[in-house]
């Protein structure tokens, strides 16, 4: 069922009977199945059968179909819309239906013309294959049969595809191979299976795994508000809802750059062309600190920008997640960024309205929630068919109209994700980035991943919660401040407001463009937290004993606190400890001077 040399069925031919935007009705396609590919018109535009109504097939066309006429021919070979999985995906950029954009530009220049047919993988490229199994071995689905160095960062494990069991008859020796070569054969119950380096998999079907597990390792992102306050686990799901310009894309980019997954799948779904260009120009230059290699060597990009055909936008997220599953099955930790899932939902809405479906909320089809759930369900930490651990984390941006979170896509998404990073317009306006709200965001992974942080500090959760409580107290007090001003509050509350302000400026706010601040190691995050808590606890005692806020803010080292994050690099965090000692010393001195203790 899954092989690079597909068994091509005899093509079925039909005729277009009507064209309504990207939806084409065709007659005469007897025997065609749901989700089969159809080539439409004289240009052979790629389409997918999305509905069968008696003798009529409804086809959603993934390319610009202006000029298409009733009477034009439609051909289907009876195979489902699929992605080609094999070595060469990494560092590549594809459109929503996995056509290589580099190849398209070589063939037709700066613009995407219709009817371009190009293979997703380079069939000529020679990969150095090293077998790890030998003839005579009993092999099963998911088993590793050999390796390829796909990029200096990614060892590509060649697996026996799902559904194939038997005795390995033959496997080629180490050496250069293309994706067309037969590299092994397996004697199965039903016959001889010829294995290649690449194979097709239907986009809309999740790849099988042995079992799902509970995630327990945090996906470290280097973004303080995420890692410390609203962490996501490897294999977890997160949504980033926010109005325009609040920082969804910047957050996705920051994660794609710095998170510690092995593979990044970046899906630009109905967003700006320049944002993909930004990734394309920046990632080859940015270096992964862990291994000194350019980030592009672990990244696959899917770009179906807002001006590209709408139906291909709908498929793009499935194309992306299927590629993610392919690498997960090799035992990798994969992070999928989908920007923006709202554009995907809108594509669904547009197509369903052309199909004449009865709309549910705000014109969206009733199956919106089911589709969202199915998509996020493809995330997870799993035991792969080979028994290894692999995981997919999915981070979806949501673009609510008018920035109003009560709309259907945000609402449904929040039911299916376990991490919700709500972006706040007021913070973005004040250029407090990331503008993730510490009041409206949440995570359900805190307890799952606490164990990992404990290795660093037994007290991590206590410290984290204590700082969070200061922020929540601040939120409560701000309601009062709005009415009476801060000066009217008791001194300790004024002090709390000041510490909260410090948390916001010295910890939460993080500049993606600052060479040091853009990535903050877990150790540095923890040490910064401890500095703030030292101020709160020791300073608080003094304030309670009668000191004023000004006595504290006059401390010489206090104004330096906001600069620690951008002046002290990740490998010199002992300087944060030194600072903390200095601050504690000054507080001690103050205590002696003023209180005479």
């Amino acid at each position: 069922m899954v092989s690079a040399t597909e068994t091509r069925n005899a093509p079925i031919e039909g005729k277009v009977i009507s064209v309504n935007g990207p939806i084409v009705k065709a007659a005469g396609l007897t025997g065609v199945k749901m989700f089969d590919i159809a080539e439409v018109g004289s240009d052979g535009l790629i389409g997918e059968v999305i509905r069968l109504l008696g003798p009529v097939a409804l086809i959603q066309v993934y390319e610009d179909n202006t000029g298409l006429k009733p009477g034009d021919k439609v051909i289907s070979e009876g195979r489902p819309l699929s992605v080609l999985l094999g070595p060469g995906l990494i560092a590549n950029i594809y459109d929503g239906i996995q056509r290589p954009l580099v190849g398209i530009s070589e063939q037709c220049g700066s613009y995407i013309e219709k009817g371009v047919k190009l293979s997703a993988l380079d069939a000529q490229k020679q990969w150095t294959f090293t077998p790890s199994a030998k003839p005579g071995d009993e092999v099963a689905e998911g088993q590793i049969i050999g390796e390829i160095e796909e990029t200096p960062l990614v060892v590509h494990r060649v697996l026996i595809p799902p559904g194939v069991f038997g005795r390995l008859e033959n496997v080629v020796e180490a050496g250069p191979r293309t994706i067309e070569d037969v590299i092994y054969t397996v004697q199965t119950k039903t016959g001889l299976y010829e294995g290649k380096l690449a194979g097709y998999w239907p986009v809309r079907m999740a790849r099988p795994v042995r079992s799902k597990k509970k995630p327990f390792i945090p996906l470290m992102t280097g973004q303080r508000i995420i890692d410390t306050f609203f962490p996501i686990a490897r294999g977890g799901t997160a949504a980033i809802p926010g109005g325009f310009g609040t920082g969804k894309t910047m957050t996705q980019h920051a994660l794609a750059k710095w998170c510690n997954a092995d593979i990044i799948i970046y899906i630009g779904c109905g967003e700006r062309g320049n944002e993909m260009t930004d990734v394309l120009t920046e990632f080859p230059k940015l270096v992964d600190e862990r291994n000194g290699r350019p980030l592009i060597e672990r990244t696959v990009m899917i770009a179906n920008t807002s001006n590209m055909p709408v139906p291909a936008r709908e498929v793009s997220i499935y194309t992306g997640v299927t590629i993610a599953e392919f690498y997960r099955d090799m035992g990798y930790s994969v992070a999928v960024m989908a920007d923006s899932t709202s554009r995907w939902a809108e594509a669904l809405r547009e197509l369903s309205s052309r199909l004449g479906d009865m709309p549910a909320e705000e014109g969206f089809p009733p199956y919106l929630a089911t589709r969202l759930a199915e998509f996020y369900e493809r995330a997870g930490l799993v035991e792969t068919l080979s028994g290894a651990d692999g995981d997919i984390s999915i981070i979806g941006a949501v673009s609510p109209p008018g920035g109003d979170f009560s709309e259907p896509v945000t609402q449904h998404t929040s039911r299916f994700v376990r991490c919700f990073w709500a972006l706040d317009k007021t913070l973005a306006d004040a250029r407090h980035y990331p503008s993730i709200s510490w009041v409206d965001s949440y995570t359900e992974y805190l307890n799952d991943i606490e164990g990992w942080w404990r290795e660093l500090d037994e007290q991590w959760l206590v410290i984290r919660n204590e700082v969070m409580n200061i922020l929540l107290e601040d939120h409560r007090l701000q309601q009062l401040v709005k009415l009476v001003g801060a000066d009217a509050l008791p001194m300790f509350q004024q002090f709390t407001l000041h510490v909260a302000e410090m948390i916001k400026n010295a910890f939460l706010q993080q500049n993606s463009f600052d060479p040091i601040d853009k990535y903050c190691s877990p150790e540095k995050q923890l040490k910064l937290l401890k500095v703030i808590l030292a101020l709160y606890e020791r300073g608080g005692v003094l304030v309670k004993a009668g000191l004023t806020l000004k006595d504290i803010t006059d401390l010489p080292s206090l104004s330096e606190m906001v600069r620690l994050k951008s002046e002290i690099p990740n490998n010199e965090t002992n300087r944060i400890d030194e600072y903390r000692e200095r601050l504690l010393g000054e507080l001690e001195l103050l205590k002696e001077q003023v209180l005479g203790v």
Partner: protein
Amino acid sequence: MCCEIEYTTIGGISGPLVFVEGVRGVGLGEIVEIRDGESLRIGQTLEVDEDRAVVQVFEGTSGLAVKGMRVSFVGRSLEIPVDRAMLGRVFDGLGRPSDGYPQVVTDRRMNVNGLPVNPWSREYPRDFIQTGISAIDGMNTLIRGQKLPIFSGSGMPHNLIAAQIARQAMILSEEEEFTVIFAAMGVKFDVARFFIDSLEESGVLTHSAIFLSLADAPSIERLITPKVALTLAEHLAFDEGMHVLVILTDMTNYCESLRELSSSRGEIPSRKGYPGYLYSDLASIYERAGRLKGFDGSITQMPILTMPSDDISHPVPDLTGYITEGQIVLERELFNKGIYPPIAGLPSLSRLMKDGIGEGRTRADHAQVAAQLFASYAKVKRIRSLAAIVGEEELSDLDKIYLEFGNSFEEEFLSQGENENRTIEETLEKGWRMLSILPQEELYRVRREDIDRYYIPSSDGGD
């Protein structure tokens, strides 16, 4: 197609739509010619069936009758001739000359719908454009190849600002050619006149092309106008290597025409009656800005739109903001205070600024100064709303200093003359003068070395 068949089998007319029955072999998006006596109108197929075509008539259907109309299908999409000889000329909303001179003679014709740019082929825009306006250059920098709209409200001076930008940004140089393309959709003649005069005064009219689909033109025509303008822009930028500034006004009118068309097709509306595909439709216009690898030219877009009831969450500004690379928002409150340009301090944003400024481009401290101004001004806004409740006297000393900063920022930094052209140096100097009103400790977004260099201690600053 050579032998055009003329159909007279009209099934009906509804709004801007004509339903033609019994047609054969007609394609989607094909151009349609509609003859009624001597008059010729142009349309386009929106939907095709085995024997029926739905045609959208750009000039509108008023005066058409089911009987007597002759319809023929041209067999291709709408194309216009493109040539640099079109500079200095005025055209109607469909790209036909309307200045009394003949059509430009050229072999080069382009499909007005354009094609999507391959993201791989884009060049990331990085070149700073000095507009001479501090609020833009200092805090919301415009980059060559950017799409940066002006969100305005009725009665506010968006036209004045756009004209000032066009004037001051289009400095002619030896090596590079600049041009302005102005497309008016549904605006009054005096708005168009104002732009034409302003371009003329600054001597750039001969380098400009004007497309007018004014308020008295059929509303459906507006749907083509931006596409026609951008088609010429693409030719000038990528065939001729020019730097093109495209001003599109008013996109709200464009969107209303689209809503009208959608409702006459009986489509299920999304928010406020606008079609669900408004986002994709706008993107097909706005994404035609940018730079391409291997080409010298650029298309910078400055769409202008009026926000109904000054509401930024209205679908038109909202979806625009989701597509463009930032927005310049005009604020009623500043406008009422008499501040020109009334560019709102907080909601305005330029997304391409980050890579187009800094050392070697503008100045090393630029990003930090901008961030600090935004942060401090945000605080001013908070203190002002507090002052409105507790009274200014009750504020702390620091809060009072912030209010002073806020006022100076609005009156000296934001505010400037309609012909005042500030250099980026002057803008940043002014920025530091404003920041110097605040105590140093408050300036945590700027680097220490920049404070040492630019901060003016209170004895000689703050006047």
